[in-house]
C-alpha cells in the first residue's frame, strides 16, 4: 500500500472514531437528562400519602396505577438508566483510547509520507 493511501485510510478511520465519539457523548447526555427526570419522580413518589392516587399517561388517557407498582416501575427504570450510563461511559473511554492510538498512527504515517516526498524531490 502506498504511503499516501495509508495516510488517507488512517485519516478516514480517525474521522470515523470522532463521529462515534460524538454519538456516544450525545447518548450520555440524553441518559443524564432521563436520570434526573426519573429521580425527580422518585422523590415525588416518596412523599406520597395513601390518598395521593397515581395516574399514568397512556395516549390521551390518564390511567390509575397502583402506588407500589408505579414506585417499582420508576426504580426499575432508574436502575436500567444507571446501567446504560455505565455502558456508554465505558464505550466513551474505549473510543478515547482508540482515538489516541489512531492519532499516533496518523502522525507516524504523515511523517513517513513527508519523508518520502522530500526524498523524491532531492534524490
Amino acid at each position: 500500500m502506498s504511503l499516501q493511501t495509508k495516510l488517507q485510510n488512517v485519516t478516514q478511520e480517525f474521522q470515523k472514531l470522532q463521529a462515534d465519539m460524538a454519538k456516544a457523548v450525545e447518548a450520555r447526555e440524553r441518559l443524564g437528562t432521563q436520570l434526573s427526570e426519573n429521580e425527580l419522580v422518585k422523590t415525588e413518589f416518596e412523599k406520597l400519602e395513601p390518598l395521593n392516587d397515581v395516574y399514568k399517561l397512556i395516549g390521551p388517557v390518564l390511567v390509575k396505577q397502583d402506588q407500589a407498582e408505579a414506585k417499582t416501575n420508576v426504580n426499575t427504570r432508574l436502575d436500567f438508566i444507571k446501567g446504560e450510563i455505565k455502558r456508554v461511559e465505558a464505550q466513551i473511554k474505549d473510543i478515547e483510547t482508540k482515538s489516541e492510538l489512531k492519532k499516533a498512527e496518523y502522525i507516524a504515517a504523515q511523517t513517513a509520507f513527508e519523508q518520502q516526498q522530500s526524498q523524491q524531490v532531492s534524490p
Partner: protein
Amino acid sequence: MSGPQQVNLTDLDLAQLADVRKQLDEELTHLTSSFQQLKAVQAKFRNCIECVRELKGGQSKPVLVPLTNSLYVPGKITDAESVIVDVGTGYYVKKTLPQATAHYNAKITYLNTNISALEEAIAKKQENMGSLINVMQAKVQEAGAKA
C-alpha cells in the same frame, strides 16, 4: 469546548480577535436562550398556582369543558379539593390544593437557583465581550495610525 485559555487579549491579532468574538457571541446567544426557556417554564408554573387558587371553593360550580377548540359541554366540578399534577416521565399524581401549590412553589425555587447561575454566567460573558471589543478597537486604531 476547549478548556479556559489564559491568553492575553492584546497578544492576539485582529483575525484571531474576530474568531474569539464570534465564539463569545455564540455562547452568549446560547446562554440567553436557555435563560429565556427557564423563565418561560417558571411562568407556566406560576400560572398553574394561579389556576389552583381559582379552583378553591369551586365545589359543584358549573363549568364548560372543551371537547375541541370550538365545542364545549357543560359540566360540574365534582372535586374542588384535589387536582392531578404532572410529576414527570408520564406520571401524574392526585394532590390536594395545598399539596399542589407547595409542589409548584418548590419547582419555582429550584428553577431560581439555575436562573441565578445563568445570570452570573451571562454577566461574565458580556464583560469578556466588552473588553474584547475595547481591545479590537484599540488594534484597529493602531493599524490605522501605522498605515
